[in-house]
């Protein structure tokens, strides 16, 4: 259907033309252009009256032999949609970008960022060589010196303050392999304080969704949205954050004449295309969802059979929902009952319906509860596990899903094995290291402030410190931080500093650190905002376009990206830097036991094979590098909607594109991957499954296993628990295992062979046999409407810490103060103080933050790209026309936006618009480099300052953390705005 351009003579001629002036060797194209006067310099001077206009020059003669054009495919790094980037490379220089028509995900298209991604590699603002601060001056150092000094310093800190004093902040820009390697390094170093951006974007999604039905990921796919007849987009603005996904959303809307309902405080570019827009007050998602469910239950629109067969404890939800009458919902959220009734009817009756959410739902002190409520809405209407339904969670970075999967998370080892002993032992087996040695790497934590001491083993199993609060763990008194010592060193890989709330506290934290290492293509806010004088290192990392490896898109599809060009300047890949550090720390031999290292660069393929060998729990076992590469080669064969290749294809026959996890068994088994999670209309071998039986088999006399529901072709025709050798023996299926498989299982199980499960069996035998019997290895359970292990088992509304409605706090207070992730969470105290001091009077405007299409995350990369930077040159605040009129603020004028904590303020441009309602302000979160009115450009190492700088919204965002994941609260804060 998609017709690809012939890569014949024609395309060669173009590059012949472009490269005609390219000297042999590795002359950068930009340098070439500059020399030819295309880029730099001025124009014909007016006064000098250059005549004759542009002189004709010789056309490139046909005698010039055409240069070799290589086409490389990688994955766009700017969001989780997973657009294929097709690069044309001549003499090692990336000269052109072509549409990737073959990709079933983006079908040739890009957003502003993807279409400008070539510049990322060429950017003259990149960090070009390692640097360190010497007496406040940036000084060039060699890689050897940098690694040497960093290694010595963290070793010294480790000896003095313990392993937990070094914080390992990873990145969602890592490939799966780099993320996995980084987590492994953290484990070998002896700490669980290994985190990445998922903390601040979808940690609550992962926690909420996984606690509902088993896995914390998007259940369907972008493409599958084309099947939906009703879609609700709540707290998401895909038109700006995931533009290419809108291709599928809008196509679905058009083909099915689907209802597209946008629920958001802000009339976004997405809302402009909606069939219904619901404006809510920030931070009242649960009342809105319960308000919708109220109408659904009231009118009997729920899917009763689905609930009976596949959902646990929906009645507990009914009780909570009953409290949310239309009147109360309107009082709290501002949404009229009639409108919610309309939405409820559409969602429940015009099926299939899908629920799409993003950071508007997750970034709250009640983030996990929000996500849970959204899942429950899907469950109540039976909208899970079928085409066109599901929780379509749009994640933020190219590999934030993969990096989460790989365990860049303070609560888990790779692939969600958790931190329990069994998990450590599993990975010790995969890594072929001694469990005891791993344990010896961890600190013993002394008793302090009335808390018990922790042994090495206990510390090994205790969640680390979240990235949202690393600076609290630096700044707080030592006895408040529940580990051997507060944090002394930050190892920041590919992570901006400005995306975390409470920037002033972060700056204090930066200044209190003994060592700060920033490894990134750009200096980032971490390196540039503070006024540190020494002990700060910048390591130039190449972009992910300059390295091989797989990336997991939001829909769980893995895509193999190949190195487009060699790392530019002196930059090195994450792989290489991790290797060099490990070598310096004396860990290299153990860390790379089964991984080939060539010229200091560990092979991505080998890393993926190791992931395959250990990734049973999440079905990361079947995606071998060879299969993934075959998928990239055969992209055009996959169907646009089902994402499946024809069965008869020799290389990818029957596979779903990118082998979306879970992809069961060993690669040789050729499981096609799972396009739609929990879909029991398909055989497991065709990607069918059920809700994961993750939470036991029974609770309070009710079964937690599915009733009368099972995947197609299953030998077991009712619910069943997850599979272990014990279960296998009962069923007599152990006989189906081969001798080799049994040998491995015996080795794994030792004395307790019955406990060997589908997730710990390194042979893959249990999974293979499960598939043969048509059953899902993780069991066939019920989804939980009541997640009893969470702080709020059934979600309840809680007002934001800084609420514009103090009158509601008495009825809907935030959770009591508690200790979480080794630190106190004093949300309740802060909320009470805010109400007592009547903060809402002085700061009457709700401040919410979000994304712009041109930028991503902390924005250093994208703000350094002139093609993007030109389009958004100034940090701004969206302010409602009436609020602006009241304050005498004109569109485009400078204003001060101030926050309620510590008198912080930011100087930004006013964008007067009705996108936001009265009493609401919106600021994008991508900016940094200005701080409280001061331009900090001078603090960047010369020549590495991003093109555009601006105030960070997080200078004025405030306290508030989700109790389950430590998620911050940047979506419902308060502020005041005045003309500057």
């Amino acid at each position, binding site marked *: 259907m998609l017709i690809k351009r012939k890569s014949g003579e*024609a395309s060669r001629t173009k590059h012949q033309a472009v490269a005609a002036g390219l000297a042999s060797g590795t002359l950068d194209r930009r340098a070439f252009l500059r020399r030819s006067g295309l880029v730099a310099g001025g124009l014909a001077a007016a006064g000098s009256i250059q005549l004759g206009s542009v002189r004709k020059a010789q056309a490139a003669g046909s005698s010039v032999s055409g240069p070799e054009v290589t086409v490389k495919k990688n994955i766009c790094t700017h969001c989780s949609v997973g657009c294929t980037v097709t690069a044309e490379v001549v003499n090692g220089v990336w000269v052109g970008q072509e549409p990737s028509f073959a990709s079933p995900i983006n079908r040739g298209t890009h957003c502003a960022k993807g279409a400008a991604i070539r510049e990322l590699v060429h950017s003259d603002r990149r960090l070009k060589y390692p640097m360190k601060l010497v007496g406040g001056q940036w000084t060039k150092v060699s890689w050897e010196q940098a690694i040497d000094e960093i290694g010595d310093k963290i070793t010294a800190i480790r000896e003095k303050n313990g392993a937990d004093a070094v914080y390992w902040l990873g990145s969602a820009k890592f490939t799966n392999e780099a993320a996995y390697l980084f987590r492994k390094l953290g484990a070998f170093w002896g700490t669980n304080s290994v985190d990445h951006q998922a903390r601040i974007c979808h940690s609550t999604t992962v926690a909420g969704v996984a606690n509902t039905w088993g896995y914390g990921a998007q259940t369907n796919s972008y493409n599958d949205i084309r099947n939906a007849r009703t879609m609700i987009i709540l707290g998401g603005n895909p038109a700006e954050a995931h533009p290419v996904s809108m291709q599928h959303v809008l196509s679905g809307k058009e083909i099915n004449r689907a209802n597209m309902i946008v629920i958001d405080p802000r009339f976004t570019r997405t809302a402009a295309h909606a*069939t219904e827009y619901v404006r809510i007050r920030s931070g009242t998602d649960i009342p809105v969802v319960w308000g919708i469910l109220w109408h659904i239950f009231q009118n009997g629109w729920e899917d009763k059979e689905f609930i009976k067969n596949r959902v646990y404890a929906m009645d507990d939800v009914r009780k909570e929902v009953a409290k949310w009458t239309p009147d109360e919902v309107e009082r709290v959220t501002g949404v009229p009952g009639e409108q919610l009734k309309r939405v409820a009817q559409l969602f429940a009756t015009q099926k299939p319906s899908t629920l799409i959410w993003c950071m508007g739902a997750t970034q709250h002190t009640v983030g996990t509860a929000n996500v849970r409520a959204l899942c429950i809405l899907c469950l109540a209407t039976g909208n899970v596990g079928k085409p066109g339904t599901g929780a379509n969670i749009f994640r933020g970075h190219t590999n934030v899903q993969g990096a989460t999967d790989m365990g860049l998370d303070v609560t888990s080892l790779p692939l969600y094995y958790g931190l329990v002993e069994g998990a450590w032992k599993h990975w010790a087996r995969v890594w072929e290291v001694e469990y005891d040695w791993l344990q010896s790497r961890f600190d013993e934590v002394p008793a302090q402030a009335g808390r018990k001491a922790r042994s090495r083993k206990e510390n090994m199993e205790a969640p680390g410190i979240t990235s949202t609060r690393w600076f609290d763990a630096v700044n707080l008194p030592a006895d408040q931080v529940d580990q051997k010592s507060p944090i002394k060193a930050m190892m920041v890989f590919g992570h901006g500093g400005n995306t975390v709330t409470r920037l002033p506290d972060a700056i204090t934290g930066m200044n209190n650190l003994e060592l700060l290492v920033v490894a990134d293509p750009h200096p980032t806010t971490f390196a540039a905002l503070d006024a540190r004088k020494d002990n700060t290192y910048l390591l130039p990392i190449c972009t992910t376009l300059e390295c091989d490896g797989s990336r997991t898109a939001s829909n769980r599809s893995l895509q193999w990206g190949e190195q487009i060009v060699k790392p530019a300047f002196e930059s090195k890949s994450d792989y290489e830097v991790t290797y060099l550090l490990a070598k310096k720390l004396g860990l290299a031999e153990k860390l790379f036991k089964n991984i080939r290292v060539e010229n200091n660069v560990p092979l991505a393929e080998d890393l993926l094979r190791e992931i395959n060998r250990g990734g049973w729990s999440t079905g990361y076992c079947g995606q071998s590098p060879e299969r993934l590469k075959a998928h990239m080669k055969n992209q055009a064969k996959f169907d*646009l909607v089902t994402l499946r290749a024809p069965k008869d294809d020799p290389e990818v026959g029957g596979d779903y594109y990118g082998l979306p996890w879970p992809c069961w068994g060993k690669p040789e088994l050729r499981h096609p991957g799972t396009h739609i999670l929990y879909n029991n209309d398909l055989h497991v071998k065709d990607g069918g499954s059920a809700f994961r039986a993750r939470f036991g088999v029974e609770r309070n006399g009710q079964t937690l296993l599915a009733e009368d529901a099972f995947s197609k072709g299953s030998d077991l025709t009712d619910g069943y628990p997850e599979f272990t050798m014990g279960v296998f023996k009962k069923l007599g299926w152990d006989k189906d295992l081969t001798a080799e498989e049994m040998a491995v299982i015996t080795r794994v199980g030792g004395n307790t062979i019955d406990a060997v499960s589908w997730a710990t069996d390194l042979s893959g035998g249990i999974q293979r046999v499960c598939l043969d019997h048509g059953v899902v290895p993780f069991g066939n359970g019920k989804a939980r409407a009541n997640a009893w292990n969470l702080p709020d088992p059934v979600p309840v509304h809680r007002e934001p810490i800084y609420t514009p409605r103090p009158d509601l706090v008495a009825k809907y207070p935030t959770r009591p103060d508690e200790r979480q992730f080794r630190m106190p969470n004093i949300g309740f105290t802060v909320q009470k103080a805010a109400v007592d001091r009547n903060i809402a009077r002085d700061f009457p405007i709700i401040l919410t933050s979000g994304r712009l299409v041109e930028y991503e995350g902390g924005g250093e990369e994208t703000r350094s790209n002139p093609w993007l930077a030109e389009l958004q040159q100034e940090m701004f605040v969206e302010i409602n026309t009436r609020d602006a009129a009241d304050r005498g603020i004109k569109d485009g004028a400078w204003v001060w936006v101030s926050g309620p904590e510590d008198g912080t303020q930011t100087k930004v441009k006013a964008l007067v618009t009705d996108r936001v309602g009265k009493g609401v302000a919106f600021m994008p979160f991508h900016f940094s480099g200005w701080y409280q009115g001061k331009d900090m450009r001078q603090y960047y190492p010369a020549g590495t300052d991003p093109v555009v700088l601006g105030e960070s919204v997080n200078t004025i965002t405030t306290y508030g953390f989700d109790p389950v994941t430590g998620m911050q609260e940047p979506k419902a804060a308060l502020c005041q705005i005045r003309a500057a």
Partner: protein
Amino acid sequence: MRLGTMLTRTFIAATALMAVAAIDAPARAQAPTTAPNPTADSVNEDLLFKQDPKIHGRISIPDQKAANLIQPQGREWRGFHEGWMPWIGAAAILGMIAALALFFFTRGRIKLEHSEESGKKILRFNGFERFTHWMTATCFVILALSGLNYIFGKRLLMPLIGPEAFATLAQWAKYSHVYLAWPFMLGIVFMLAVWLKDNIPNRIDWQWIKAGGGFIGKGHPHAERFNAGQKVVFWMVTGFGAAMGITGLMMLFPFYATDINGMQIMQGLHSLIGVVFIAAILAHIYIGSLGMEGAYDAMGSGEVDLAWARSHHDLWVEKEQAKTASGPQLRPHQAPAE
């Protein structure tokens, strides 16, 4: 071949949508839903054109003129500029030349009336005045030619000398137009400074006009330093000059004072006034040179024949001689020969 590929790519760009529908037809065979029409209240071109003659929105780049989406006035301006303007210009200029030729052939050259004072000179314009006149005049000629080049160059000149040479010439013309506008405008200011006081209209002018300025019939009506005809020329030059200056500046500094439509209007005015100005100046040149014997000397050497002066500017001559009884250039006043 090439076309074929392009056409197929056209299909790629969007037919996927239809293909999908076909593939997935069974899943969505249900009847269309009652989803409200989301574009029922969406903006459309006709609606916006009813509100405003051009469509204007919001844009994030600082170049705010880019926020104009469509300005159909461009086509109207083009219609005027390419449709009407060449004809208007041609008519004005050729018409004036024709009129002057007709006048010349019917009335002939106005001769100097010889008298006893013939051969005696009186200073009519001092050096600065002549300098001002000539600076303005030379600039005007270049401006006129380079201005006309914008309209007629490609029609008349380009076919003769070829596009490349013409483009070079046009580039010169454009620069000279823009830069010589400044001495021209300065000249206008100087003219106002030195001649304004002599150009205030009064009753004598009325009589001069009633008498037909001496062109019709015999004898000369009274006139001061400048007769009504010259005053008209003065006010025309300064008025048109100012108008050309203002409209020109509006275009020279785009978007400082007016938007695109304002500039279109300015351009229209500039060219219309321009051709009228040129036509009028042609007449002025005619009278100052070919049309009247002795007139040229006023700006040539500055000195005119006293007899000419007396017949054309009798009151001025009286005044000058009264004022400068001991003036070196003037002979003592003698009683008019009756």
